[in-house]
């Protein structure tokens, strides 16, 4: 008989923020089958409490630099920063969901538990120190989101969104997995640090480069960069608006977190190669996103293309590299998350003739009937354009600055031209809200206490980030420091 294997050290403290979220998901699942069976409103409260608990755990753990489970899980400031962004997005989305689901008559415990499961997956993507964990966490996040996209079963577009997202997502995941397998084959490890050490001696090995390209396809799908963006408009349009907000922010932040860590830590030796690839992807993504957005009449599709364009800007930061580049991306993600969650949340509050108000023309005359909501929505759009003194301006400023300092003048010129193009379609929505009169029934706004609170938080976020960005920019720089050792 062989000797007993000593049990491995289990350091649950490193997992604390994720465990809090998963525990909340389990509690929601159990409470779902207990009375009261006809009202599920309290489950949203439980989910929110779980996310706030996770936020507290993140703040408590700030500054630690721990690793556990044989370097599979890392808890450094980088992971904690992303946990913060993801949990903020999740908290705001739960608040928007409470009344949104109640209004559409589809409240259920599974919604909140799946939302929490995908949140946990996203947080683990930011903490992953091993490609296997990257993949599993990505699948945990994606599987939950595939189901959530099809949550409105009575709506055909919702089912279509779910099916499309699932099929294309599975396809992209297999690319990622194939890339991981090739990199494992070339370097003999899936651990990020050991890959870096093994790859340092043999850089231009074709197997590493092919693996890198395949992983970029997988990540490129999740962040919806061109040419892997085809799913985004259909899924954003068909999915419940609250879920769309999460797909547009949380899943993007998580995919960026994993991608930046893999590129900057494990494949730092191949930086010239991936930097050149990302240059082309960035230019293509922002241009296609902005140009196609010009032609959209559906507000959710418009925001889908706008989010694609923003991914293009963020890829610039990765191209720029060094410390300031990724740091600017992290700051941009924070500003983008607040703005986009807020914009989708405001849309979720609006309805016209019993349907969700998703056409741009639905918003005609919103300013006269609901001046506060119109002003809020206008603020979000102005921030997305990048008008000072809002968060979007500062974020773009840091990002473009990092690119210029790294010598990527042409890429920055393309980005600035793109920002000018983007102003047109955002302003068009504002023109509709303020200067047009509705033909037929005007848009109605559902009263929602939690939704209002979430909107207030989002607006406060973009104004504070815009007015005093320095502490948050420092935070982002501190967060990328663990990657650059």
């Amino acid at each position, binding site marked *: 008989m062989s000797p007993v294997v000593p049990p491995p050290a289990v350091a649950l403290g490193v997992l604390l923020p994720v465990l809090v979220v998963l525990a909340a998901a389990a509690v929601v699942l159990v409470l779902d089958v207990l009375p009261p069976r006809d009202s599920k409103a309290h489950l949203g409260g439980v989910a929110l409490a779980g996310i706030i608990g996770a936020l507290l755990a993140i703040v408590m753990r700030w500054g630690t630099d721990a690793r556990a489970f044989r370097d599979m899980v890392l808890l450094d400031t980088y992971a904690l920063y992303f946990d913060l962004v993801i949990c903020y997005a999740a908290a705001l989305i739960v608040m928007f969901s409470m009344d949104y689901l109640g209004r559409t008559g589809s409240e259920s415990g599974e919604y909140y538990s799946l939302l929490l499961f995908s949140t946990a997956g996203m947080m683990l993507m930011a903490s992953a120190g091993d490609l296997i964990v990257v993949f599993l966490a990505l699948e*945990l996040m994606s599987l939950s989101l595939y189901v959530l996209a099809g949550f409105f079963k009575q709506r055909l577009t919702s089912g279509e969104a779910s099916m499309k997202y699932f099929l294309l997502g599975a396809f992209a995941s297999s690319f990622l997995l194939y890339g991981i397998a090739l990199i494992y084959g070339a370097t003999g490890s899936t651990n990020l640090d050991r890959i870096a050490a093994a790859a340092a001696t043999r850089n231009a090995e074709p197997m590493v480069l092919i693996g890198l390209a395949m992983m970029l396809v997988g990540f490129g799908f999740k962040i919806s960069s061109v040419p892997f963006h085809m799913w985004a408009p259909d899924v954003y349009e068909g999915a419940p608006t609250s879920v769309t907000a999460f797909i547009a922010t949380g899943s993007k932040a998580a995919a960026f977190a994993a991608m930046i860590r893999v590129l900057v830590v494990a494949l730092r030796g191949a930086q010239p190669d991936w930097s050149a690839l990302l240059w082309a992807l960035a230019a293509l993504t922002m241009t296609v996103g902005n140009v196609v957005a010009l032609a959209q009449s559906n507000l959710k599709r418009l925001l889908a293309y706008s989010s694609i364009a923003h991914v293009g800007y963020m890829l610039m930061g990765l191209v720029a590299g060094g410390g300031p580049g990724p740091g600017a991306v992290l700051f941009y993600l924070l500003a983008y998350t607040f703005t986009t969650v807020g914009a989708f949340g405001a849309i979720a509050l609006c309805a016209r003739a019993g349907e969700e108000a998703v056409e741009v023309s639905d918003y005609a005359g919103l300013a006269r009937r609901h001046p506060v909501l119109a002003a809020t929505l206008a603020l979000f759009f102005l921030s997305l354009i990048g008008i000072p003194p809002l968060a979007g301006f500062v974020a773009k400023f840091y990002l473009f600055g990092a690119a210029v300092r790294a010598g990527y003048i042409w890429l920055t010129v393309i980005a600035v031209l793109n920002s000018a193009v983007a102003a047109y379609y955002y302003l068009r929505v504002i023109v509709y809200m303020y200067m047009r009169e509705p033909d037929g029934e005007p848009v109605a706004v559902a009263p929602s206490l939690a939704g209002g609170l979430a909107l207030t938080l989002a607006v406060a976020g973009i104004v504070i980030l815009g007015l005093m960005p320095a502490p948050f920019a420092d935070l982002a720089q501190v967060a990328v420091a663990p990657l650059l050792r």
Partner: protein
Amino acid sequence: MELAAFTLIALIALGSALGLILKRNAIHGALFLVVNLGSVAALYLTLGAEFLAAAQVIVYAGAIMVLFVFAIMVLIPGKEETGPDPRRPLRWVALPAGALLLAQVLVILVGTRGPTPVGSPAPGGVEAIGRLLFTDYLFPFELTSVLLLAAMVGVLLLARRRT
């Protein structure tokens, strides 16, 4: 020798994969998939991963394929019965072939009586994998269970009828 085995098995795997995609008949496609999964299991064997090969056969070629064929039979009724069997005369070959197989199994069963060999665990064996699963890969193992739970909740949500 190894290269020849690999080439042969890989060709079978690729051919059956193509057959799966190109066949219009769903049952034929499913049978090609069985061949494909079996040849991938054989590839695992040539790499010395016995456990993986066994798991592949049991889980994929066994359980999942039965489900596949079952679903096809249930969802496309009538398609599998297309008139009288064109290869009716071949039925007479079945009896001797079956008898031959039975004889083979009996010979093997009788011939391999004896003490089981004892040695250090093979690198691809069950023990080595179990060891890795509960030490180095404990966290991915646990994460997979969360993933399966989320998938289960999702399936229940999508499959449940709206009341």
